[in-house]
């Protein structure tokens, strides 16, 4: 019942520099009680999609429903049952933690006590700072407070637009653990992120780029679509290694990936030992080349280049 259906949504903006297509014929079906990730860089159209689903923006064409309610006709109903955390954590910086929470509880016709169970895990971390002004909280704390505010009325659906952007890895990890727990309590969650590694935490993900959905898949299945051999290489001088790999004829693509470089070859039959020999000739030391399973980021980059 708590599902989200999106069909053929299109949205354009008329700007100073011409027409921008924010969403280009986007269709998506999100099941009830699913933790669904919308993954893509800035400007991919994530925020536009969130605004359309939360009824604050009208699409140019196409239709969508949240929990069976139409986003245009039944917008009032959707506003009652949705929790929304916009890209910038929308809190009042001059109100304290407690005042912010109280305020949002009131406008949703509820009280902190009524749904305390739902936010308890998060709120206990905020409680020591409850008289502090929201503007004086760190990124991680603001994010938790914004989540509490979005949850305070026990919504059926939670829309989180880039909740982890600019937040350090520890807070991010904690945040995703919270989302898992919320999902288990029966809430449908649509969350967007520019961090590819966070995709693994979702039930399903959609990759979005320039207003188009590139792929909808369970994270574990994304790699299956890669369809090529992927190698990882490392050596002492990583920058020289990158230059030499790119200069080599048999290499299709090569990118830095953490402490290694990932590359694909033009001809699947190319023996990696040949590449290793070439690199040793180039005086690389401690060279290590192995075939690896592609990750989400590898797949996304491959899809982007198509």
């Amino acid at each position, binding site marked *: 019942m708590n599902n989200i259906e999106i069909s053929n949504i299109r949205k354009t903006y008329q700007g100073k520099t011409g027409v921008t297509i924010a969403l280009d014929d986007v269709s998506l079906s999100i099941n009830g009680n699913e933790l669904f990730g919308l993954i893509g860089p800035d400007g991919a159209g994530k925020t536009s999609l969130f605004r359309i689903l939360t009824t604050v923006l009208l699409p140019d064409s196409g239709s969508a429903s949240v929990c069976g309610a139409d986003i245009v006709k039944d917008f009032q109903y959707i506003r009652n049952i949705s929790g929304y955390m916009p890209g*910038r954590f929308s809190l009042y910086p001059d109100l304290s933690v407690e005042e912010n929470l109280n305020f*949002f509880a009131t406008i949703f016709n509820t009280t902190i006590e009524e749904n305390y169970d739902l936010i308890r895990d998060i709120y206990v971390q905020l409680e020591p700072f409850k008289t502090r002004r929201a503007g004086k909280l760190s990124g991680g704390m603001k994010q938790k407070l914004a989540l509490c505010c979005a949850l305070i009325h026990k919504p059926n659906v939670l829309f989180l637009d880039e909740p982890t952007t600019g937040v350090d890895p520890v807070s991010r990890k904690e945040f995703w653990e919270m989302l898992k727990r919320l999902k288990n309590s029966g809430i449908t969650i649509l969350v967007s992120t520019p961090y590819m590694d966070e995709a693994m935490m979702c039930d399903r993900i959609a990759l979005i780029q320039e207003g188009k959905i590139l792929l909808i898949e369970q994270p574990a299945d994304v790699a299956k679509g890669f369809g090529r051999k992927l190698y990882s290489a490392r050596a002492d001088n990583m920058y020289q290694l990158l230059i030499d790999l790119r200069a080599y004829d048999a290499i299709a693509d090569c990118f830095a990936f953490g402490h290694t470089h990932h590359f694909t070859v033009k001809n699947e039959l190319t023996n990696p030992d040949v590449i290793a020999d070439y690199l040793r000739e180039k005086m690389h030391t401690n060279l290590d080349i192995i075939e690896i399973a592609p990750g989400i980021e590898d797949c996304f980059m491959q899809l982007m280049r198509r």
Partner: protein
Amino acid sequence: MRNQIRQLVEFIRKEFYHIIRDPRSMLVLLGMPIVQIILFGFAITTEIRNSSIAILDNARDDATQNIISRMENSQYFSIQKDLINNDQVYTAFKTGKIKMAVVFEPGFAENLKHNNKAKVQILTDGSDPNNAVTLTNYASSIILDYQASYNQMQALPMAIETEMRMLYNPRLKGIYSSVPGVMGLILLLISAMMTSIAIVKEKEMGTMEVLLVSPVKPWLVVISKTVPYFALSLINVATILLLSVYVMGMPVMGNVILLFGVSTLYIFCSLALGIFISTNTSTQQAAMLASIMGLMLPVMLLSGYMFPVANMPVVLQVISNIIPAKWYIIMVKSIMIKGLGIGSIWKEILILNGMTLFFLLISIKRYKIRLS
């Protein structure tokens, strides 16, 4: 319904927090009227005292002596009488010793008696036009005074021209015209500018997005934004009136309750204007600019606060009619200075009511339940 009242109360509380927690802005909002009244009352007064003037009395008869002594006693002028010819008048102007010269024609009293007409020339330093106009007004009012008393003893009266302003402000005190003006300006500033900025700020911070996605009714958001500024405006009305009565010595001739009534109406009109501005702008900067260019300047220039409407070109006179402050200032002057009752200002009340309704209606029409 109960829920909505609770929402409204909570909302208004929040708005008060925003204002109270920004002490600098609050100080400006509450201090501004005080500073303005004191500035206009004491420092930037249009009143003139002991201005040096010269008198060239070519008649030296009863009539001229009478007028000169009236001038001497007026406190406005400090007279240097020792002039005997026109050349001296020009020299005195050139050296900057005097601001005005009064020249009586020879046989002044005779002419008055036999021709019912006598000539007096008033020369002023046109390089300071405001001052010159004021001095001329003072001098001519003294001469008219004399004529009035002279006419009482006379069988054939002379036609006397007087200005409206003199009728109700015989001592030409600057404060009389600045109090209504300051009220018109301050209330507009607080109600319209601050309200529009407060609403637009929510848009800018992104909190409006969350409010839109909540069940809260948009009108409730807007109403609660206006309440604190309404309260602040009323405080300012009280402050200005107390200051003008007890510090500046300008009494309220009419009904104080009526004065508060029309002020409330004007505040409503300004709040409606503020809401209207907020529906048309999306950044605090734009709202501020719109308020200053669209509200403050017209009030200062066209409402009759600084320059009399009657002296403006016809086009500007017509434009001045759409400025709410003009009507409010007329009402305040009527109540405070002339002591008139509601019967004399019903037209202005109707006009302001109409304007308020108009701004509210287009704001409601333009109010967006969605972004852009």
